[in-house]
């Protein structure tokens, strides 16, 4: 290997690592010397100054199901190559792959103190989870965007490896991380305010320097046609969990949601359930958790045939100081599971 070249390590899943498709998604982490698959295109884009010294590959399912262990092993394999920079993906719209790329890059930055970059479709769930800690470049939603993505990834990785300053998302093209940083502008705040005001008055474009948080809008679902045969699920942000809070859902800024069986239960009592929520006085919910999650009434309605069936599980998280990004992620994950389980409609209760 030529001396003085920047050392790049590439992370891929089983598919792009040319091990196989979904049937190989359980493959544990392994390392190869040199470039593999899209690494070839990346190599060309990196040019003469850098070299892909190794590729680490892990199956998506394996990574998702052994998160801590897989991250540790992948990290060890990456470390052996002594990289100057790590590139993961691109993952496009593959959710598990995107999440793995984010997790790998986050660990590389935090544990190995080596810069890392990944790329994926902006709506990949990996984006919301990791954008704060990791540089993520936006890509198309499928591998058709590979040719466009690789040169951008290569150029960004070279910048990182050389220790060059990374500019704003607008300048560099990465997905905004939501981190506020100071710098000295060319004009004073007052002069910028008057410029902005004049632009606003003249109907010309202007960019606010502090964007306000925005919330999603979703189109409404069609109504449930046959309630007597529908499966209805209960979901709550009011923190109703089995007594003892087995998943240790945090009382505020929840880092997870829980899924709990309602099989064989007709009524929630202080003996069986409690609230994990720290955002309101828990006395009433603890005395009778049905006040937040109306299981007793749902069972009555199920018996009477008003609804077809109450879904066997309820989902719960704590909507107290939980970031919008996390809340959306839990919502998406819960919705996906419910859809796969054939649930027709959901009653979401909030405190």
């Amino acid at each position, binding site marked *: 290997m030529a001396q003085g070249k920047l050392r790049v390590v590439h992370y891929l899943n089983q598919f792009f690592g040319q091990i196989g498709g979904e049937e190989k998604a359980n493959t544990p982490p392994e390392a190869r010397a040199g470039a593999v698959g899209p690494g070839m295109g990346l190599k060309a884009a990196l040019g003469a100054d850098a070299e892909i010294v190794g590729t680490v590959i892990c199956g998506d399912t394996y990574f998702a199901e052994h998160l801590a262990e897989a991250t540790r092993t992948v990290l060890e394999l990456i470390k052996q190559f002594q990289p100057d920079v790590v590139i993961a993906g691109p993952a496009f719209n593959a959710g598990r792959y995107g999440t793995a790329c984010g997790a790998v890059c986050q660990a590389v930055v935090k544990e190995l103190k080596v810069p890392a970059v990944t790329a994926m479709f902006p709506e990949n769930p990996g984006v919301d989870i990791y954008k704060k800690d990791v540089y993520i470049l936006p890509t198309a939603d499928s591998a058709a965007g590979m040719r466009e993505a690789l040169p951008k990834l290569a150029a960004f990785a070279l910048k990182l490896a050389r220790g060059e300053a990374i500019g704003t998302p607008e300048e560099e093209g990465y997905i905004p991380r939501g981190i506020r940083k100071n710098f000295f502008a060319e004009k004073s705040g007052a002069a910028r305010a008057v410029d902005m005001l004049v632009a606003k008055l003249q109907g010309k474009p202007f960019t606010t320097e502090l964007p306000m948080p925005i*919330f*999603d*809008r*979703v*189109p*409404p*679902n*069609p*109504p*449930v*046609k046959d*309630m007597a045969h529908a499966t*209805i699920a209960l979901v709550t942000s*009011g923190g109703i969990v089995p007594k003892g809070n087995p998943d240790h859902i945090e009382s505020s800024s929840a880092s997870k949601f829980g899924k709990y069986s309602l099989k064989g239960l007709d009524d929630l009592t202080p003996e069986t359930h409690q609230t994990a929520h720290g955002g*309101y*006085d*828990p*006395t*009433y*919910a603890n*005395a*009778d958790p*049905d*006040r*937040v*999650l*109306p299981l*007793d*009434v*749902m069972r*009555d*309605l199920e018996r009477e045939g*008003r*609804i077809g069936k109450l879904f066997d599980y309820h989902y719960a998280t704590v909507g107290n100081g939980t970031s919008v990004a996390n809340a959306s992620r839990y919502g998406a994950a819960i919705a996906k599971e419910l859809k796969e389980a054939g649930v027709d*409609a*959901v*009653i*979401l*209760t*909030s*405190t």
Partner: protein
Amino acid sequence: MHVCTVVPISLTVGANRIVPAVAIPHPLGNPELPKEEEKALRRRLVEKALRALETPVEGQTVFEN
């Protein structure tokens, strides 16, 4: 379908079918009522939620009654 005490928050976060609830610490109950009446109140709210789910909506809709 969102059963929620603070309707404006539900509107802000984008829920489309909204049923206003009783109070923040007890959205589907009222500890001041006798047990049976409280359950009847809860049932009325859940039935309202089911009716909301059966109703076609164009956009965000609050089911007051």
